[in-house]
């Protein structure tokens, strides 16, 4: 593929050089314009010729034609410019009166040709949107005479999407060529694409119409079959990569939601049903930071996300500490009651958000460096915001891991997770560790909310869907196990996305739940069980 592009480039450069050499002439070749004096057929031929020739002079003539100012006097094409009449080819003023000019009339077919020719000219425009529009117009009605235009444009074009359209249009023209070798080359060139539209084009060759093959030559048909296989393979790979990517993206969100829960559940054995609402707190904090930036620092609006990181963490952590101090602290050792109380907290938080911010969903703008995406193949785009979020999840994970493994607090947290009474006996301040662990777990949930706000709507009930998923991750991974949570989150994310592609979103969700229920039958301690002997209560 690369080689062929180089070849095309070289060919294009050569063509450009000839074209660049040509504009030394002052004006259009008058023979190009001769057709305007003739019938509609002749006019169309002239218009096409102008489109193929390109250049400012051709554009000037076509503009005049469209504006109804192109006329003929004595077999010579002229442009009426107010009262003056100019020669269309050279642009020189003539001394004939405007009244003597017989204006060139258009019918629908000629108009269509004119549109094509103008599109051919627009292919060299500097504006991407204009080029794209022109390419689509031309791609819709390819015409053999336009082939040089396509080749020329392909040589200069750098935008992948426009290149694809042009290459397909050119190939379609070549596929209609009477010369079997040209067709074969076109088919082989198309086989390097990874575009489903090209596949459809090639499949058209392998059909029979009225008992005859659309493509007469058997060798070209074989080549077409091979090309289709190649394209399908490439599409399948691209789609697979796309699915794995969206699975990773879902997994990273799950991980951010589950990391905090893994810590709090590990330390206190309490499932915080309001954990999803901590995500919501983080997301609304991000929203507020965006609002502040928009009002006071519009120049730095692109960096509001960075500024929101500490804000989201701290606000969620504060809410978490309040929850721990006011409610959960008094329910230690009563996990089922804690479940109910935290569910009550989540109801209150959701309703509070609804009263303060209104029930509608808020949409946060991505900063410009996070919008757009990298196109992997036609139709498979990896959005930058999701890539950033995966990176962010890794960053948070590393921080948490360092905190857990390298700091004194992390050691305390691990100690309390493993054996609370014994940790207390050797002097670990368990109550303070609880509060700090809860603050950190909640803060991480707030960071998850920040990440979520970049890919989904922010609303009062945005967190409710995540508590069960996050808990499933914790259960799958094994309580108090960071590594387990990571594997479980990524595994679940990718598994869910593959199922989704295969069976639809709802069935996928149900299958995942069933899978987890069955899994817990087999391994109640999760993938990675804590080693050691535990008596269950």
């Amino acid at each position, binding site marked *: 593929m690369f080689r062929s592009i180089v070849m095309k480039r070289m060919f294009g450069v050569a063509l450009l050089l000839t074209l660049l050499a040509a504009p030394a002439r002052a004006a259009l070749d008058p023979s190009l314009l001769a057709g305007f004096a003739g019938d509609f057929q002749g006019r169309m031929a002239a218009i096409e010729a102008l489109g193929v020739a390109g250049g400012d002079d051709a554009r000037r003539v076509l503009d005049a034609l469209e504006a109804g100012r192109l006329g003929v006097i004595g077999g010579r094409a002229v442009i009426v410019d107010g009262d003056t009449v100019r020669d269309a080819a050279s642009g020189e003023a003539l001394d004939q009166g405007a009244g003597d000019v017989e204006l060139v009339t258009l019918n629908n077919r000629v108009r269509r040709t004119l549109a094509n020719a103008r599109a051919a000219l627009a292919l060299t425009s500097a504006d991407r949107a204009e080029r794209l529009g022109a390419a689509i117009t031309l791609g819709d009605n390819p015409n053999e005479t336009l082939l040089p235009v396509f080749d020329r444009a392909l040589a200069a074009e750098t935008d992948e999407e426009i290149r694809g359209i042009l290459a397909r249009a050119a190939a379609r023209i070549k596929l209609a060529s009477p010369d079997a070798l040209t067709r074969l080359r076109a088919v082989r060139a198309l086989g390097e694409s990874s575009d489903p539209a090209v596949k459809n084009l090639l499949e058209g060759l392998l059909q029979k119409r009225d008992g005859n093959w659309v493509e007469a030559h058997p060798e070209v048909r074989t080549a077409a079959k091979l090309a289709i296989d190649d394209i399908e393979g490439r599409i399948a790979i691209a789609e697979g990569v796309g699915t794995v990517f969206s699975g990773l993206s879902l997994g990273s969100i799950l991980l951010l939601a589950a990391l905090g829960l893994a810590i709090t559940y590990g330390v206190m*054995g309490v499932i915080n049903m309001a954990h999803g609402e901590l995500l919501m707190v983080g997301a609304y904090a991000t929203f507020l930071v965006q609002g502040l930036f928009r009002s006071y620092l519009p120049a730095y609006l692109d960096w509001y996300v960075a500024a929101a990181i500490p804000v989201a963490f701290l606000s969620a952590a504060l809410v978490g500490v309040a929850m721990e101090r006011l409610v959960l602290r008094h329910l230690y050792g009563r996990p*089922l009651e804690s479940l109910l109380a935290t569910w009550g907290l989540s109801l209150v938080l959701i309703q509070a958000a609804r009263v303060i911010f209104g029930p509608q969903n808020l949409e946060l703008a991505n900063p410009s460096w996070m919008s757009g995406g990298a196109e992997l193949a036609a139709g498979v785009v990896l959005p930058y915001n999701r890539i950033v979020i995966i990176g962010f999840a890794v960053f948070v994970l590393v921080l948490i891991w360092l905190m857990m493994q390298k700091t004194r607090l992390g050691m305390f947290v691990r100690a309390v997770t493993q054996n609370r009474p014994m940790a207390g006996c050797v002097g670990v301040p368990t109550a303070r560790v609880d509060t700090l662990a809860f603050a950190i777990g909640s803060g991480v949930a707030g960071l998850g909310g920040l990440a979520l706000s970049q890919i989904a709507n922010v609303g009062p009930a945005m967190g409710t869907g995540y508590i069960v998923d996050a808990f499933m991750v914790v259960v799958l991974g094994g309580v108090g196990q960071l590594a387990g949570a990571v594997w479980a989150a990524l595994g679940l994310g990718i598994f869910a996305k593959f199922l989704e592609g295969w069976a639809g979103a709802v069935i996928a969700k*149900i299958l995942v739940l069933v899978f987890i*229920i069955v899994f817990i039958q087999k391994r109640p301690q999760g993938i990675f069980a804590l080693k050691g002997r535990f008596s269950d209560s």
Partner: protein
Amino acid sequence: MRTPFTIRLIQSTPKSGWLAIAIFATLTLVCVPLAHLALPESNPLHLSAYTVSLLGKILCYMVVAVAMDLIWGYAGILSLGHGLFFALGGYAFGMYLMRQIGRDGSYGADLPDFMVFLDWKALPWYWAGSDSLLWALFLVVALPGIVAFVFGWFAFRSRIKGVYFSIITQALTYAAMLLFFRNETGFGGNNGFTDFKRIVGHDITSPEMRVTLFALSAALLIACLVLGRYLVSSRFGRVLAAIRDAESRVMFIGYNPLHYKLFIWTLSAVLCGLAGALYVPQVGIINPSEMSPANSIEIAVWVAVGGRGTLVGAVLGAGIVNLAKSFFTVTVPEYWPFFLGFLFIAVTLYLPDGVVGLWRSLRERRATAAASDAAAAPVPAPRAAASGPDPVAVSKGATA
């Protein structure tokens, strides 16, 4: 010789209990029907159709609360999926109600409206027999029963309990909700079943039918209470409470907790299903939102408010919370979530034994005060002995 079952059943409920049941039965089976049917609307004691339906609905909720209390209060298993069994019973009976519409639907077809809308030509296989009342009643019992049995067997066999069990039941009901939301599942999708016309040929909106359904709900509640009292005061109930307080010890003594848990779990689900079947004709609609996790968790709060481990508490709790809900949703709907949320927190923090527990401790305090006045001597606090083994304290001890 063992005492015959009926005698034991009667004896299990104390005399005061029978008295309360008799008063309740008079109220619900005689007074309410008369007040609705016989009194003219001008009479201040007349009960409107709305009130009767509301009370009937709350009676169904009370049955659910008793079912929940059996499993949570006595066996220590907090289910966050009881909405599923309630809805399954409702759907099973709803199928019959849909078939009873006959050709009176808006499309005038033999099939229920939503199937015509989906362009289905015949009933799916699982709708077979849905036009028979007997089959519908069988399904009402069997469907929640089988689902609960299968799920419970797997869950209890691998000794899943505590929060794990709670969350998995929640996941189960959530998955079922998603499934029922799909049109292809064949239960009306989003809209569920509604626009019912008649039961066994009688108009479903007639006052007589309304009163009949109300009385049936009341009778079901009474039956649940008597049966529940019998179960929890029998040997079975004592083993159940022992499992709740120290499952490992019960196993070491030689009982297999699986059978006990599985039985009470399935029974609880069946009771929920029956309540659901009576609920649907009284409210006139059943849709998948009944299976939403929030509904199921609310059931737990009814029981917590009333007092876990007391059957009367469950009934009281369901009544209090639902009357409050009716009041709030009519007057200040936006404050209902706040109220409910704070209720969750307040009850778990300050009223671990619910309203009934509060009542008992107040009475005991008065009794203690009276006793100390009389004897002027220190009396050992009788609270723990009177309120039975405190499940929280015991499980706390076991965890620690």
